[in-house]
Structure formats: structure tokens, C-alpha cells
């Protein structure tokens, strides 16, 4: 026994030396030769979820989207959509447990444009199928397939109408989120959409406390402000909105002609119904065109201001990147501004990469952030400009119509519409 203790001490003394070099333990102790019938066991390796399930997921998604389109456009059944919502929580939520969802797939798709990243077939289809359906039938994916939306759908108890200006400002966040997600993916700084996914923790029945709090906050707010994540954060919603705006067909509020009873406008929890346009405008068309001209002339100024403004934030954002923060830490340690070292800086020294290499990599990431944020600023400027131009337009709407961009096709308006379809008239 004592012999071992001495050996142990010697080994502890040499430990310091060993720690600093990556220990590739080359059989310090020989393999034993057993005299008994002992069989050396081999470790078990439990297998991952079968490929079969990936195909099953795609199949269920396709069937779900078709059913949602059927309930929203053909059958006009709010109940059908609601039941589909509940089954989506069960299948895509609790059974499939979230990953990879179409929202997060934006990042994988971004990566697939660069170099050697192989994007799995399932991810391609999870990204593209909801968009295809949006292009033909509107946002039926949001209506009852998206598990994140579904979870918020069932807590809408007392939806309040938000003031219009606030709504317009808040609806800029998804564009910002989308842009930042793409930027973080391109710079290799991580998948922020997944990092701040509020609901995946519920589906997995386990989460970090931050995730749980975020999810609870969204659900609590969701009681009063219907579907807050979908409307004011979801970056995939931006894409779906654009595709849905140009869709061939879309859910209609009324099956026949509108009686302008306003019931649908009150029923819509997300304020996505456009009222009929006023018959008379205060200004003449000439004045309106002049205003539009002046505004369009101002757009370059808006773009440059926002681009410059955003690029000033590049230090804050680039510090979120691990290479950049590690390079900063190493720099502080090398120049003795900080005496201690962190796990990360220790690990970096173990790797024996040259410091200059790290620095140049960090500088490259910083530059990427600078350019990226310039582009993001210009993008946001464009979005704001287009929004203002759209607001300046004078639509010729005679009836209450769903706002194709923002309507989530939940079907409440159909339920509230007092006008009956031809079919039900016949049946009656």
C-alpha cells in the first residue's frame, strides 16, 4: 500500500509538467493478462434517433400543412385548425422536441451557402415546405403547425389591441433579429435563434432557468398580447410574411359578400385585418405623389445614417464571438493587465496555436462584423422605407380583408363572420 502512496506523490509532482502538454496516454500500464475466464467487455453505444423518424417528420409536416390549408381555405373550420394546433403541440412539440424547426433552419440554410457545410435533407424541406405553402395558401404553417406558435395560440385569453405606432415599431424587431441571426451565422459566432428559443425548454421538459423564464414571460404576455413571439420576434415570420403577401390564395374572412359588420375586426387577436379604405382623403393625389417623391429622395440618407449607426455597434456585437473574446482575453494576459487565466485561455495555450494566428482570426471576424452591421443597417433602413411607402399608399379596399403579410390564418374571423356560405345556406 505504501509503495503506491509514494508512487502517487511522484506522479502528482510530475502532474504540472503533464498538464501543460496534451496528455496522450500511451498505455502507461500494460494490458493485464487474466488467468481467470474474464472477458474484456466492450462499451455500449446507444444509437441515435433512426433516420426513419426524420422522414416521418417530413411526412407529418406535409400532411399537417395540407390539412391546415384545407381547414383554412376550403373547409373554413376554426375548430379543425384548433385541433390541428393541439396535435402539433403534441407531435412537433413534445414528441419531436423541437429541433430542427423551420425558424432555426434559417441558420443552417445560411451556412449551406458557404463552403463545405452539408445541409441535411430534412432541414432543407423543413425550411422550404412552409414557405411553399405560404406562397400558395398564406401562413397556414403559423396557423396550426408551428409548435412555438401553437403554444402561444392556446394562451390567448384576453387579447388587447396595441396602439398602431407601437405595433409598427415592434414589428421591425423580426427584421433586426433575422439580420443578426444571419450575421452571427456567417461570422461563425453561433446560432442565436436557437439560443434564445423561448419554448423548446417546455417541450423537452428540462431547460436552463434563463430559457424557462423567457418562455414563461412570453406565455404570460401572450395572454394579453396575442402571440408576441410570432408577431414581434419570429425571424422566419418575416420570410413567411413576404411569401404570403404574394400568395395565390389566402383565407378569406367572409365566404360571400361582406356586410361590413366589423365583427371580424374585433375578433382578430393580432390586429391583422385591414378595414375598408376611406372614400375621401384629406390630401389630393398630386400632393401625395409629391410627398412620396420627397420621401424617396430621402431614402439614401436614411440608409447611410442607419448603416453608419449600426456599424458603430460592431465592438459590442463582435465581443459575443468566442474567437474575438478569447483574443481579447489572451491579449490582456500577454500584456499583464490581468494576472489570472481562464479555462479558455488555458485550453488555447494547450493547443499551441500561435497567438498571432488567433489575433488575425479575431481581426477578420471583427471586420466581418463591421461590414455585416453596415449591411444590416442598410437592410433595416430599406425595411423602414418600404413600410413607410406602403403606409403612404392609398389602397382601394371596399371590404374588411386580412392583412396578407401579418395574418396568421388562425381562422377566428371566419368563425365570427355572420355571413353564411352558399353551401350552409343550401343545407339550412
Amino acid at each position: 500500500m505504501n509503495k503506491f502512496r509514494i508512487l502517487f506523490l511522484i506522479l502528482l509532482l510530475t502532474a504540472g509538467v503533464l498538464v501543460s502538454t496534451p496528455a496522450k496516454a500511451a498505455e502507461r500500464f500494460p494490458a493485464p493478462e487474466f488467468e481467470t475466464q474474464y472477458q474484456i467487455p466492450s462499451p455500449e453505444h446507444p444509437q441515435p434517433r433512426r433516420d426513419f423518424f426524420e422522414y416521418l417528420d417530413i411526412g407529418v409536416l406535409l400532411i399537417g400543412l395540407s390539412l391546415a390549408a384545407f381547414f383554412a381555405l376550403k373547409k373554413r373550420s376554426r375548430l379543425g385548425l384548433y385541433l390541428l394546433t393541439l396535435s402539433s403541440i403534441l407531435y412537433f412539440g413534445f414528441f419531436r422536441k423541437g429541433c430542427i424547426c423551420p425558424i432555426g433552419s434559417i441558420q443552417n440554410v445560411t451556412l449551406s451557402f458557404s463552403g463545405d457545410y452539408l445541409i441535411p435533407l430534412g432541414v432543407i424541406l423543413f425550411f422550404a415546405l412552409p414557405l411553399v405553402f405560404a406562397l400558395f395558401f398564406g401562413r397556414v404553417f403559423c396557423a396550426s403547425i408551428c409548435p412555438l406558435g401553437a403554444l402561444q395560440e392556446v394562451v390567448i385569453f384576453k387579447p388587447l389591441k396595441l396602439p398602431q405606432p407601437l405595433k409598427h415599431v415592434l414589428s421591425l424587431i423580426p427584421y433586426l433579429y433575422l439580420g443578426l441571426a444571419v450575421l452571427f451565422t456567417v461570422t461563425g459566432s453561433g446560432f442565436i435563434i436557437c439560443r434564445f428559443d423561448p419554448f423548446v425548454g417546455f417541450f423537452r421538459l428540462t431547460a436552463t432557468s434563463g430559457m424557462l423564464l423567457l418562455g414563461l414571460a412570453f406565455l404570460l404576455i401572450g395572454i394579453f398580447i396575442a402571440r408576441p413571439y410570432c408577431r414581434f420576434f419570429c425571424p422566419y415570420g418575416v420570410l413567411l410574411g413576404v411569401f404570403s403577401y404574394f400568395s395565390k390564395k389566402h383565407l378569406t374572412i367572409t365566404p360571400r359578400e361582406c356586410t361590413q359588420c366589423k365583427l371580424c375586426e374585433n375578433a382578430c387577436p393580432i390586429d391583422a385585418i385591414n378595414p375598408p379604405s376611406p372614400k375621401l382623403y384629406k390630401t389630393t393625389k398630386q400632393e401625395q405623389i409629391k410627398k412620396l417623391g420627397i420621401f424617396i429622395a430621402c431614402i439614401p440618407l436614411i440608409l447611410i445614417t442607419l448603416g453608419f449607426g449600426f456599424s458603430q455597434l460592431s465592438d459590442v456585437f463582435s465581443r459575443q464571438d468566442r474567437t474575438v473574446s478569447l483574443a481579447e482575453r489572451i491579449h490582456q494576459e500577454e500584456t499583464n493587465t490581468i494576472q489570472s487565466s481562464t479555462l479558455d485561455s488555458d485550453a488555447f495555450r494547450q493547443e499551441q496555436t500561435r497567438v498571432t494566428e488567433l489575433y488575425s482570426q479575431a481581426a477578420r471576424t471583427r471586420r466581418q462584423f463591421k461590414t455585416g452591421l453596415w449591411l444590416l443597417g442598410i437592410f433595416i433602413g430599406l425595411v423602414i422605407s418600404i413600410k413607410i411607402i406602403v403606409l403612404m399608399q392609398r389602397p382601394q379596399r371596399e371590404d374588411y380583408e386580412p392583412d396578407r403579410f401579418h395574418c396568421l390564418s388562425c381562422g377566428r374571423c371566419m368563425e365570427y363572420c355572420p355571413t353564411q356560405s352558399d353551401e350552409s345556406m343550401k343545407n339550412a
Partner: protein
Amino acid sequence: MKNKTNKLTRREFIKDLLHKLLLLLLGSFVFTRLFKSAQAGYVWQIDPKKCVKCGRCATACVINPSAVKCVHEFETCGYCNLCFGYFQPGAAHLTADAENQLCPTGALQRRFVEEPFFEYTVNEALCIGCGKCVQGCNLFGNGSLFLQVRHDLCKNCNECSIARVCPGNAFVRIPARKAYLKNE
């Protein structure tokens, strides 16, 4: 501004054009990606050669306890009596008493095989993936213990939250067909 021939307003015409454009964009995206796609899904794995045994696997995983467990490659094990993965440095006695054990949860279990050999097995239900035993085994032993992601537990997050904080950048995504990176 009505186009009398096909009764389309200008707005409708532009909308229709953009509808087709978006369809074309989406179609070409799917079509080009199909040639670049990986057939089966990808799963997260730890490259044991890069792992620095920092202990973050135990705390950073989205599930608790972590999906990372210690795995024992018996073939490289020396079956030592004084196992540096099993015993606390300076353990008073080489017995299975809790104060002598390195593992905080008693997940590494030892069984006498024959003089002087002992077999060590990991009870994965107890293991939290802290890597204390792995560090001991790699520093002073054969390095037969290593940390690995277990696929029956791993949720296969799109962004692995351990990979995000792994100081050795040891987390890699590999095809599900070849699901396990082994310790050599």
C-alpha cells in the same frame, strides 16, 4: 391603368410576377441544395483527442443531468488497483469508501476481478459528465476513460449549448451513421 386585354390591374400583374419570382427562387434553392445535401441527420460528438476535461459538459447541457457521460474503453484499461480515475488524490485507503472516491456521484464502480486486477464500470444513470475521472485517468493512467455524447439522451440541438462553451472546440457534428467517435 387597366390592362384591357387580360383584365389585370398593374398591381395584380406585379404581384403575380413576384409570386413567380419567389417560387423560382425557392425552387432553385431546393434544387441546388439537394446535390449538396447529407442524406441522414447529423449528431453531436466529442472528439476525445481535443477534449480538455474542463467539466463544462456537466453544467452547460440543456438537459440535466448532462447527455455527456464518461465512457470506458475496457481494452485500453490497465485494470489497476490504484486507479487515478477512481481514487481521490492522496486517498487514505484504496477502498470503495465515499471519501476515497474521486467521482462526486459514485458513478464509477469498481469490482475485483483477480489479483491484482480491478474492473471499472461507469453507471451512466449516476454519471453527470464532469470528467474528473477522465482527467485522472488521462494524466496518470492509460486514458481508457473518456467523455462522450450519449445519443439516447442527447436532444441533438441545432446549436449544442456545450459546443458553444467548449474551450477545446472538441464538439463536432458527424453523420448519424457513424454515430460514435471512440477513444482511438
